[in-house]
């Protein structure tokens, strides 16, 4: 569904989408040391829909952040499409994140007092602003997610489900091969939740790798999910 963003595809075609090895994230809180994520090794093949499942505080969000190159692991390494991003400098990691990863984080949703369209085009600002092609793509995404008519509304006027879909549109505007989502179905009623799950499956069918962290059975137990990883206390318990 895209003509642009092709630069993200020119990597070793056989490398897995994500190869994480011995990942640990340790926070120091006063004298206490907390391992939010302890020793996680994962290999996610391309074109699959995976779910990280676990109660809140189990380290899902932190793991997701490290997988997407947003957090620097305390130990271990992450390779995206065969390229190690663990030891990149901030500047280069930003590049990788920008073109290969679409983040849809619950807590980092939309910028308030801005229109939906401006929010969706936000990733393009450091690239010099949106071109006509980008604008068309943003419109197409909003249309596809059923909020095309709300493009110029301020985000405050959107319902929870609409916000979630707007955030998803923003995550896809640069056409990343990898999409990471944190609690994409939180605060949604069943209709909206199922709609989001269907969207995630569609994205997977487009050829993208989709990983969602959730404790919502409506998503985790869905038949279209390729694999569920269970997490507890920062460790993977297996599917």
């Amino acid at each position, binding site marked *: 569904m895209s003509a642009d963003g092709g630069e993200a595809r020119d990597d070793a075609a056989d490398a897995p989408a994500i190869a994480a090895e011995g990942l640990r994230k340790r926070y120091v809180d006063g004298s206490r040391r907390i391992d939010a994520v302890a020793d996680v090794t994962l290999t996610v093949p391309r074109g699959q829909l995976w779910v990280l499942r676990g109660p809140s505080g189990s380290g899902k969000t932190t793991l997701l952040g490290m997988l997407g190159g947003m957090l620097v692991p305390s130990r271990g390494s992450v390779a995206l499409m065969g390229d190690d991003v663990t030891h990149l400098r901030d500047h280069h990691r930003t590049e990788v994140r920008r073109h290969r990863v679409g983040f849809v984080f619950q*807590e980092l949703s939309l910028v308030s007092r801005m229109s939906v369209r401006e929010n969706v085009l936000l990733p393009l600002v450091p690239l010099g602003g949106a071109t006509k092609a980008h604008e068309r793509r943003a419109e197409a995404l909003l249309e596809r997610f059923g909020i095309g008519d709300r493009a110029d509304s301020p985000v405050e006027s959107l319902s929870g489900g609409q916000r979630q879909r707007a955030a998803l549109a923003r995550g896809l505007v640069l056409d990343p091969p990898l999409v990471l989502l944190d609690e994409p179905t939180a605060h949604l009623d069943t209709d909206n939740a199922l709609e989001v799950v269907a969207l995630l499956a569609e994205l997977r069918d487009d050829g993208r790798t989709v990983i969602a962290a959730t404790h919502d059975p409506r998503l985790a137990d869905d038949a279209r999910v390729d694999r569920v990883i269970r997490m507890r206390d920062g460790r993977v318990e297996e599917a």
Partner: protein
Amino acid sequence: MKRQLALLDFAMGSLRRRAGKSLALVAGLAFVVGLFGSALLLTDALKREYERGTEAMPDLTVQRLVAGRPSLIDAAAADALRDIPTVREVRPRVWGYFFFRAIEANVTIVGVDAARIDGDPGLATGRLPRAAGEVAIGTALGELLGLRVGDELGLPVDGEMTFSRVVGTFGAGSALRSADLVIATPAHARTLLGVPEGAATDLAIDLTTADEAPVVSARIAERLEGARVLDKRLLRRTYELTFDTRGGLLAALLVPALAAFLLLAWERLTGLGAAERQEIGVLKAVGWGTADVLAARIWESAAIAVSGAVLGLVAAYLYVFWAGAPGLANALLGWSAIQPPMELAPSLDPVQAFAILGAVVVPFVAVSVVPAWRAAMIDPDRAMRGAS
């Protein structure tokens, strides 16, 4: 370039989204810059005005001290000084202050030899006095007493009214300098001030080489018992010191206002709100680098700082030079009875203007960027979880 334009565009959007805060900061900045700018412009212009005046002073002024006080000097003493090398001219002068009961103010009576003045004497009407019984007067005096050219002004001298015909008036344009002036011939000034024949207020000495002033001063001190010799350059330095001190005091009075604003600004800028922190987290998550976040922030605060500083500067300028600094001038000038309009010549040049602006804009931008930088450098995870 394209990236910076896009970031600038975003920054303008941010300003708009936070319109209340933005406007408050611009207004606060304009107020503080206006206060300090007014004090600076006013003292600077006064100082420059005095500098122009010191140019007209003789190189050396010789007074006689009696009992440690300036006293009348023997006019004949001038003859004893004329043969000192590099002395071009020695002029006994008669001038002094005269308290006018009618207007409850001191006026300055100056004896001037009209023949000595070449070029424009700065009169608005009439001419300089050439004979005894003639005077030229300043605007304020003319207005307060209702005097015009041709009228006569009677002053009590030795218990008798001595009348002087007004032959010239100074205009409003030079009021700052001429408002309280009474110019007469040296002889007539002597009569009005009650200076005895053969005495003078001081001796004005012009030198062929101004650099010789210290040497000549020493020679004069040798020849005239009890003479105090004042060097033009020393007097100029005294003025400079006085104004720097005054200006500094005035600025010091404003320090609380500045401190209050800085405190407020610091609180507003460093106490990055949860919403802004979260916004930075969003930007980082959607692929903005730290440099992008900072660039947008710099645009944003530069726009605020430049607007505020320029508005403040313009306000200060209009207040001092168009409105005559009402209020501030009083604080600076004391209880003067004659208050001529403060029509000062601005001493503002581009370098000074941009120095003032730079002194405001640079620290302001720096201060506002620090918290954004800290928020952007933090593990995005912290920003991310800030709200959860």
